[in-house]
């Protein structure tokens, strides 16, 4: 996946604008405010880990990670790295890259589950790609803090897999006072859902699977002519599908039944667009087709409930996809009741116990998730120059009885509660 293209839509500072004194003062004030809400500010941190899973090659025994200015300064064996004086030293049994939740609705969906904190689904129309996730994301949501406490540093969140085209998704770090502080990729993907979860009742469209495909194809066909004539008024909806056709943004297609997965692949081929398969309960029935499409899969949460269109989901889907050579990530998913969010650390633990090696299971919530989201140049592994996003544990991270003892986002210790 082409990361450059994904980043095109991000809030880059306008480099041609001259920085005024006022601007700098505001920035400094903002920075100070953010820092005040941190546990403690250490510009430079050295983390000693009995085992450091860099996700580059083998794990390092007795490793050290140096953090300077929010980035990883160096990583290696303790014998090879001298910790400079003045660095705050933290220790853990196991150090991993900050965990990545490849698909959630947290931040749009809140833990109270009341109308005012459920912003993940707008039901007025089945096709609304113009809905921007960052216009609804609450960085102060308790569920964001909850995930952060379990080592999750990056989330791909947005509109729910519950309408044909429910809206946009975004990528955020799990720390920040405002959405602008937290946002990583403002528009990551367009959320599309095929199958039961996006069917309408009472004579409204889409009322069938075939209608879903027809409506999605019609939108893409309409967008193919968009922008061809200069005098056509701007249309937010079509504009987004045009970006999809230009391969600037992928569709995140949630499809559980095998026929829905195949429909997604058929539409991707017809329009030569990029897609990421999501949910994919029956992916294990169509491994060859997914493999030859080259598209990655963000598989359903491992402990999701089996029923209806997810009746065939399996604890082994992730391992089967991996064995077939398909890039796979895990997700906390979308829950309408209890638990209001799952935790990818626990979901990955279940695949580590059901077919995947420890390293491959960890990859589903670190480097492979980063690759699918197109952010692996910044996060997903512990490497020099990457964002200093790290998780620390007092034992095997996947063991139920271990604890996350520290989470670092952009070089800041943002959680040190033993969870």
């Amino acid at each position, binding site marked *: 996946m082409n990361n450059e293209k994904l980043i095109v839509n991000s809030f880059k500072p306008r480099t041609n604008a001259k920085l005024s004194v006022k601007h700098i003062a505001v920035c400094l004030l903002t920075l100070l405010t953010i820092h005040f809400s941190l546990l403690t500010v250490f510009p430079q941190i050295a983390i000693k880990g009995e085992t450091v899973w860099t996700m580059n090659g083998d794990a390092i025994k007795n490793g050290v990670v140096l953090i300077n200015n929010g980035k990883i300064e160096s990583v290696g064996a303790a014998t090879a790295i001298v910790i400079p004086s003045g660095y705050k030293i933290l220790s853990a049994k196991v150090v991993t890259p900050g965990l990545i939740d490849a698909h959630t609705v947290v931040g749009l969906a*809140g833990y109270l*589950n009341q109308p005012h904190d459920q912003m993940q689904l707008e039901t007025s129309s089945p096709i609304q790609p113009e809905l921007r996730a960052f216009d609804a994301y609450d960085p102060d949501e*308790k569920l964001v803090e909850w995930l952060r406490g379990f080592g999750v540093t990056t989330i791909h969140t947005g509109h729910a897999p519950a309408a044909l085209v429910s809206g946009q998704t975004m990528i955020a770090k799990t720390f920040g006072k405002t959405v602008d502080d937290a946002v990583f990729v403002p528009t990551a993907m367009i959320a599309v859902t095929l199958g039961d979860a996006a069917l309408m009742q009472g004579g409204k469209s889409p009322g069938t699977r075939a209608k879903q495909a027809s409506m999605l194809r019609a939108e893409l066909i309409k967008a193919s002519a968009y922008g061809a004539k200069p005098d056509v008024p701007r249309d937010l909806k079509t504009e987004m599908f045009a970006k999809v056709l230009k391969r600037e943004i992928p569709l995140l297609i949630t499809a559980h039944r095998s026929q829905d997965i195949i429909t997604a692949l058929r539409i991707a081929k017809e329009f030569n667009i990029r897609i990421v398969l999501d949910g994919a309960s029956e992916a294990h029935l169509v491994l060859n087709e997914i493999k030859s499409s080259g598209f990655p899969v963000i598989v359903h949460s491992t402990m999701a409930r089996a029923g209806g269109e997810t009746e*065939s989901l399996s604890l082994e889907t992730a391992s089967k996809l991996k064995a077939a050579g398909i890039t796979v990530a895990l997700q906390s998913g979308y829950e309408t*009741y209890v638990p*209001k969010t799952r935790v990818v650390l626990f979901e990955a633990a279940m695949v580590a*116990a059901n077919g995947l090696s420890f390293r491959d299971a960890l990859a589903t919530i670190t480097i492979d998730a980063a690759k699918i989201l197109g952010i692996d140049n910044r996060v997903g592994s512990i490497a020099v120059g990457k964002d200093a996003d790290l998780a620390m544990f007092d034992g095997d991270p996947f*063991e*139920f*009885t271990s604890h996350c003892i520290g989470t670092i986002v952009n070089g800041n210790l943002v959680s040190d509660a033993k969870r």
Partner: protein
Amino acid sequence: MKKVIAGILALLAFCGISSAQESTVAFVNARIIPIIGVPIENGTLVLRGGKITAVGDSRNVQIPSGSIKIDAKGRTIMPGLVDSHSHIGEGAGADGSSPIQPDVRILDAINARSSSIQRAQSGGITTVNVMPGSGHLDSGQTLYLKLRDGNIIDDLLIYDGNRIAGGIKFANGTNSIRQGGGNFPGTRAKSVSLVREQFIKAQEYREKLFKAGDDKSKFPARDLAMESLVEVLDKKRVVHFHTHRHDDILSVLRLQKEFGFRVVLHHVSEAWKVADEIAKAGVPSSIIMIDSPGGKLETMDVSMTNGAALEKAGAFVGFHTDDSITDSRWFLRSAAMAVRFGMSREKALYGMTMANAKMLDLDSRIGSLEVGKDADFVILSGDPLSVYTHILETWVEGKKVFDRSDPKDYLIAVGGYGATNDRSVHIDCFDGDIEGGQR
């Protein structure tokens, strides 16, 4: 003629004994966690006729000659798990006509062939309290089941004399409150008042029965609801009370004190706020471990430390799945998560077995590996609290009901195409019409 009948009876009795006796099976070289007593590193478990006949250190246990010996080296054996609150079996209890329906039995609604029951077997659960929902103040009678391989519900029943074992489900808080819901309560105070009214009626009904003595002509007209509540007043039927908020928990304790029934607190999301009061009341709690807080307002303050807080206060703690709120297949994970958040390993494992057995009045038969108890146990590939451990076999009354090495059972445990045949998915324990509710 009498001799012939006596002969036939003797023959029948003999047949009965021989079929129940089967053979003696001995598991040797196992790590055994008996729950009552300390773990045994190299232990032997002997069973015959569906009962445990010996358990202990391999050096001390005499294995009867002719026994089938099974080497369980590297395996851990512990009692079958007891789930004190589940919704497996696709059943529903009370309907929308009124908030208190003690007459309704979940017995009359369960699909014994539901794959949810097989999933529970694969999760090591051997005894379960199947409950109707929490959308009523009282949604009806619950049912204690042994997860034998069965075709109809009768095959799974547990008898206490002639009585089918089970409790009764009550709920307070927002699930049973319905604004403008006809005869349903609109507030917490009304909820308590409606329940008190029914119990006072039941006390009067009971008094009439008492006064009638053996004179059937003086019996009050049969009333299914009253009969059920009289069993509650007589302490024969345990009240399983769904309750979340700390003030709701205290309301249950107040009702319990007034009417003297036996009660188990269920969910108890804010137990950490009133752990001392719960301990002082001597009332057991069955808790649930959920992966994140909230989902509805009255559970916003739920804590992963509830188990630890109740243990510290000296209260009696068990666990439940509330399947399908949490999946029966990884019930053991609840104990592990409670340990992660401060509970002791011993109390957590006790809470998966013996504590729940006591809550269901079945502790003389199940809940621990002791001589004379039912041969209900699980064979694990490793430590019960490890994520990497798989449940290899589940045995109920000396019969294997789940075997991970059998492809059909493996499919149930792991999932995949054809793993479930459930006609309805019971997403939550709440069967009311307001999701989330108010705080």
